[in-house]
């Protein structure tokens, strides 16, 4: 490859006879028509550089936000895990408390007895079906016995203590009135 710039001008075209005056028609190029000289457009540079800066800044802020969010997510997730654990522990406790063994035992400790004798009140005519008899511990169909229907989730201390009746503040217990006070048909709305 030859660098055109380094080649002497004489070597271009046919060698010119020595001493021959320069051809007339080769004249120096005229000066460019005087156009108004272009000033460097600083505004373009400013826009480009400014744009890049803004993008970089936005990117920076965005990733700061994201990583901040990541830490927040991470801490919230661990909080959620802790809460789920607490929830589970409490649910476990609750379901064990609501097991029939626990309920019956506590009811009995509070002095409640189950009445095996069922009595129905028929609403249509107010008739009492069955013979009402008060419940008594001796006639209770079953007595709770943890040993017979065990539940190892229950701790013995979960049974409440029987309440001690407070003689001074409790109202004098009136003798129960065995009669059924209502006479005649049950009241019912007269709407039609």
């Amino acid at each position, binding site marked *: 490859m030859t660098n055109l710039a380094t080649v002497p001008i004489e070597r271009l075209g046919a060698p010119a006879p020595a001493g021959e005056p320069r051809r007339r028609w080769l004249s120096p190029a005229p000066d460019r028509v005087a156009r108004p000289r272009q000033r460097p457009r600083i505004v373009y540079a400013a826009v480009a550089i400014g744009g890049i800066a803004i993008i970089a800044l936005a990117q920076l802020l965005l990733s700061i936000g*994201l*990583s901040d*969010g*990541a*830490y927040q*997510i*991470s801490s919230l997730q661990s909080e959620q895990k802790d809460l789920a*654990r*607490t929830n*589970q*522990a409490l649910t*476990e406790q609750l*379901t*064990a408390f*609501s*097991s*029939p*063994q626990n309920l*019956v035992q506590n009811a009995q400790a509070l002095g409640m007895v189950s009445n*095996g*004798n*069922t009595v*129905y009140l028929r609403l249509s005519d107010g008739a009492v*079906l*069955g*013979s009402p008899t008060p419940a008594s511990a001796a006639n209770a*169909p*079953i*007595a*709770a*016995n943890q040993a*017979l*229907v*065990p*539940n*190892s*989730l*229950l701790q013995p201390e979960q049974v409440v203590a029987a309440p001690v009746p407070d003689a001074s503040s409790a109202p004098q217990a009136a003798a129960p009135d065995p009669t059924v006070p209502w006479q005649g048909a049950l009241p019912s709305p007269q709407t039609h």
Partner: protein
Amino acid sequence: MTSTTTRTTRGRVAIAVLLIVAVVSVFVVRLVDIQVVQAEGLNAASLASRSDSTVTLGTRGDILDANGVVLATSILRYAIEADPSAVDEFERPAADGSGEVTVTADQAIGELATAMGLDPAAITAILSADPSSRYALISKSVDVATYNAIRALDIPWLYYKADQSRSYPDGSVAGNLVGFVGEDGTALAGTELTQDKCLAGSDGTEVTETGEDGVAIPGSTVTVTDAVDGGDVQLTINSDLQYFAQEALAQRVTEVGAESGTVVVTEAKTGKILTAAEYPTVDPNNIDATDPEYRGAKVFSDPFEPGSTFKSITAASLIDAGAATPDSQVLAPYEYTSGDAVIHDSFYHAPMPWTLTGVIEQSSNTGISMLSNNMSVDQRWDYMNKFHLGQKTEVGFVGEDSGDILPGDVSGPTQLDDQTIYNTTFGQGLTVTAVQMASAYQAIANNGVRMPVQLFEGCRHADGTVTDAPAASTGEQVISAQAAQDTVHMMESVATTGYAADAIKIPGYRVSAKTGTAEMSDGSGAYGGAYLTSMAGMAPSDDPQYVVSVTIRKPVTITSGLAAAPVFQKVLSQVLKTYRVQPSTVPAPELPTTY
């Protein structure tokens, strides 16, 4: 410019170009090698070094009773592991916030022991078993409270692993039916095993890229496999009723010095099992406390000779076949001989003029044997087959037994010896399970229509859809409605005038029942002097809604049906109360028992 200088310049240029080309090609080759040839391996290695793979747990489903009470549920338990090689003193923030305090290894072990309720020596022993090891298991499973307490100690050489475990909030209530899982989570018994396909979930995997401090890089979580939660299984059991039955049964079994017992309650119109209690029953939270013999569901798996409660089935078959009516007369002697067979009644009496009702009321073996002569042996076995005796029930419970209405070496009932042919009329010489017996009584209570036995309502998936629900069935007409009603009325005389009448009376309700006192085989073909007492029946007799069947094995102090009668009465009363069954309004028909 001379030609020499030109040549030198050219040479230099050429060398430089060659050198550049050589260096660039080395880089290109290396680049291709890294980016293309080894790309996959390098990517994986880089991902592995910054990513964290976690197992997401697929939760095993719950087991619920008919009202949605949770009988079995999944909970998280934590394994506490240690790195013995790293056990040393460490610093942790002081409790009062003033800088850090140094905690010695012994101090840490002491605190850990207190939190876990263990002896410090036990933990020291675990840690010093192999001090150079990187792994030692301190506890396989601690609960949440303990776990939180241990974590609060901030011991750097401890590691924790969450694992699923099962909890049975109601303990031994329905423990026989619910079953249990092993330590590794595999289903071992009961519904846990029978419905394992529905209950089991499958674990998933998640991969997350994390920074150096373990915080996940946003948007980098990739779910490799989804965790799938298991479905919930709903039973037809009423857990409160089940508890009541277990308590009542257990009290009676211990009272009469018996070995074990069962109570089965079914809904007459649907065949649903409402209660299948037994004593002893396993507490699935504490399996080791129960004798392995009683860790299953004997109501399904343990067939027995039912004894006199079977007479109702024989009588129902006789009436349906037109071979007898409730008024059919028989002069029943104490001892009846036919062919090689010799049949005795349980008490001595002169020949009695009993009707079929009287035979049922007095539970006469000779009477039912003589009346069964009106029906062919094949026909009687046809009825047993129609009652689905000798076949597994529709429940398909794990370990379920089919019972035997024919010995294995006999191809047909006519090949049986005379004694066995007659024995089967009153429930000896054949075996049934407690659930089969309740199911046969259900058919009698439901106007002769046997409904498929049902224990499972189906499998409810996480998205709410229910699968595996038993197909709706209209049942099978085993005997005619009339034959069924006649049988119910005959059994009513047992509850009004039979020997156990006082023990099973329920004020306001008409009750039908049949007592039974079966001799138990000693396992070698002979009867060993032990008894299985039973009581089966239904109420209210004018329109039976519920069937209760009680058996008590090997009672000592009372060996008649009276051993089982109080349990029958209590459970049936509770059933009528629970389901608000109105008292009977129509008086009982008085069928003649003698002529």
